[in-house]
């Protein structure tokens, strides 16, 4: 009897000492895209495993197949993922089709406030309908499309002199889209260190979302809007406005005159390859890759510089990034919510940024030392101030594929004019919204 009391006391002591260990340990599967930040998250999650007793399993899918694979999983009610870091555009479908757990009650009960996260990221990654306080995700990974360049080439006196002679201007980080094109055209076909170099690597991919994400960088900078009035689905005069036509013509000119040969179907990976192999002077890509690029032994460090997507009529960048959601079909929702609670903590968010993830937490972003913490941190903040996203409607995939087709047909395949491409895009989108009962 005495020994039984000792045992009970020891058990009580042990449970007090390891108070954070949950009653039942689960194996949680977190699904995301296979890219640099995912590796950082694996590292970060070790702390969660130690604290909670749960084990983490990761399912990372390469970007070109990510949407297909994950949306099929959700649509079939699959139980593969307990947690999903899904693209911002999936939030509408995730919410309306019941794929994601609504998190409002959980946030309220755990004292997680959305005011602690950057408003732009909450709007983009968490809310559905847009801007309403209905949360289906916690902002997990802030991201935008930005630019990087060969700083070492830009600083070469002979290059600077040649640029001055060619354009009458000093070579530096471009302030406008047109300046960006001018610099890219200057580098196109230029001999540097005995090799032929090209202007810039931009997105032209056809299959998933590439060319849309690239071209919207120019469209947004020209002031492109999806609707004349938000929420009306009235696209005539907005999607095909003169500014939008000009922006699309600009992107086509960029593709035709300032990219490497054969650059017809290129997205993130090809952009990184083109830059790392020294093919191009500049490249567009998501901020998520910038820590890895800066650390690259061949083209990183002093050789690389970063800049935010230049404005033209307005300052704007294409939104990337994702929120983390609990999948409604998961049998381990409690453990998944535990993970979200842990991830929302300011000190975890700080470590997330330190490891290479882009925290959306204001305690990280508003930290006085943040802009100095990485050479691209200030640009990231600037970009996130002006981000714009694609439609986040439940029918987003259909809307996106229509835009992919129209843009690729015009920009890469030389079919029709910019005006025709945008007019046809309105027809496609109108048909989709009519099917959806929204028009």
């Amino acid at each position, binding site marked *: 009897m005495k020994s039984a009391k000792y045992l009970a006391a020891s058990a009580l002591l042990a449970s007090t000492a390891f108070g954070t260990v949950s009653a039942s340990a689960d194996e949680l599967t977190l699904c995301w895209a296979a890219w640099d930040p995912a590796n950082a998250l694996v590292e970060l999650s070790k702390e969660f495993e130690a604290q909670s007793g749960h084990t983490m399993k990761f399912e990372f899918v390469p970007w070109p197949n990510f949407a*297909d694979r994950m*949306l*099929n999983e959700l*649509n079939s009610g699959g139980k593969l993922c307990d947690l999903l870091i899904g693209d911002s555009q999936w939030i509408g*479908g995730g919410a309306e*089709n*019941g794929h994601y757990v609504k998190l409002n009650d959980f946030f309220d009960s755990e004292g997680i406030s959305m005011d602690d996260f950057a408003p732009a990221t909450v709007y983009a990654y968490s809310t559905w309908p847009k801007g309403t306080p209905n949360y289906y995700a916690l902002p997990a990974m802030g991201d935008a499309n930005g630019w990087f360049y060969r700083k070492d080439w830009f600083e070469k006196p002979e290059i600077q002199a040649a640029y001055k002679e060619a354009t009458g201007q000093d070579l530096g980080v471009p302030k406008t889209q047109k300046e960006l094109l001018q610099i890219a055209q200057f580098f196109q076909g230029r001999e540097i260190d005995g090799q032929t170099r090209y202007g810039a690597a931009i997105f032209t991919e*056809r*299959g998933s979302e590439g060319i849309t994400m690239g071209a919207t960088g120019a469209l947004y900078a020209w002031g492109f809007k999806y609707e004349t009035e938000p929420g009306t689905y009235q696209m005539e005069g907005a999607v095909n406005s003169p500014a939008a036509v000009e922006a699309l013509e600009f992107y086509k000119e960029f593709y035709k005159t300032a990219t*490497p*040969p*054969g*650059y*017809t*179907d290129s997205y993130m990976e090809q952009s990184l390859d083109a830059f790392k192999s020294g093919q191009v002077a500049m490249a567009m890509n998501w901020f998520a890759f910038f820590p890895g690029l800066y650390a690259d032994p061949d083209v990183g460090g002093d050789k690389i510089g970063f800049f935010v997507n230049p404005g033209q009529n307005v300052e704007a960048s294409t939104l990337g990034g994702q929120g983390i959601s609990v999948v409604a079909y998961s049998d381990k929702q409690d453990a998944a919510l535990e993970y979200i609670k842990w991830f929302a903590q300011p000190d975890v968010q700080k470590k997330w940024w330190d490891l290479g993830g882009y925290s959306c937490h204001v305690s990280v972003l508003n930290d006085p030392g943040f802009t100095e913490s990485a050479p691209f941190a200030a640009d990231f903040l600037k970009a996130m101030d002006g981000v714009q996203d694609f439609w986040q409607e*439940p029918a987003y*995939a*259909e809307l996106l*594929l229509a835009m992919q*087709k129209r843009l*690729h*047909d*015009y920009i*890469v*395949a*030389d*079919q029709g004019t910019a005006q025709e491409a945008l007019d046809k895009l309105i027809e496609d989108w109108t048909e989709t919204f009519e*099917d959806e009962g929204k028009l």
Partner: protein
Amino acid sequence: MSDTPIDRVAKATPPVLARKIRGFSDRAIAWVFIAPTIFLLLAVNIFPLIWTINLSFTNFRANRPNREVDYIGLRNYERILTDGDIWLTMQATAHFLFWTIFFQVLIGFTLAWLINRKFKGNDLWTTIIVLPMMLSPAVVGNFWTFLYQPQIGLFNYGVSFFTGIDPSSFQMIGDVALAPWSIVIVDTWMWTPFVMLICLAGLRSIPDYIYEAAEIDRASKWRQFWTITVPMVLPFLMLAVLFRGIENFKMFDLVVQLTGGGPGSVTELTSINLKREAFEKWRTGYASAYAIILFVTVFGLASIYVKALNKVKER
């Protein structure tokens, strides 16, 4: 005289059961044997087909199981048949189909004719020639993207070597005019051996005595070719055309890996377009109507072709 096994089974069968079995006609027993096959056929072929036809009249979306499904009559069919973009994909498919079959038959028959002539290393050459068709189409598509690469691709360097054109001055899979030919070249490279093997079987099935009789009649080699070889190989050739036609009509993997349907949509074959509608846009009703149209097209053309093939065989 001892009992046969059948007699022994008959004696061992209980009289009640024996009466029942005796009541079965040959036709009934035949039905019992083929019933499982018919059931399987209905389950995996006929039922999905009927279900697809049913879906083709609706606005159903497989990614919105909770949404109300409306019957919209022939609206999906009307949309497809009046959609200019779909006709462009049909044109792309027709271009691919015609030229791949043309080149495969031409080159395949020529290779078979050459291989059929006895020479040293005949078997080795046959093995080398059939190698491409043993590879996975996805792998072939992938490595040809490298061969077509304008800056480092062997294909471009090969063309440059023979013509003097700068290798980086043209893009096989990035140029609107060249991309349709790029997929024709790869498919021809991969599947010509298949046509060659069928033609070879045809050539080897021609008895030598026919040629010997022609020789005695002093028929020239040219005349022997046109009056003996071609007519006797024709049924085999037509069979090869049928196989390749059906295969290429539903071509997907190789072209997706090679061009992804681009640039723009110039190599977007109907199967790629259909996959996008069904499993990327999730317009299930629309895609079902699309699939039915394609099914009717292939079935109709194949039926006409098979009748022609049978007539040729009867000659």
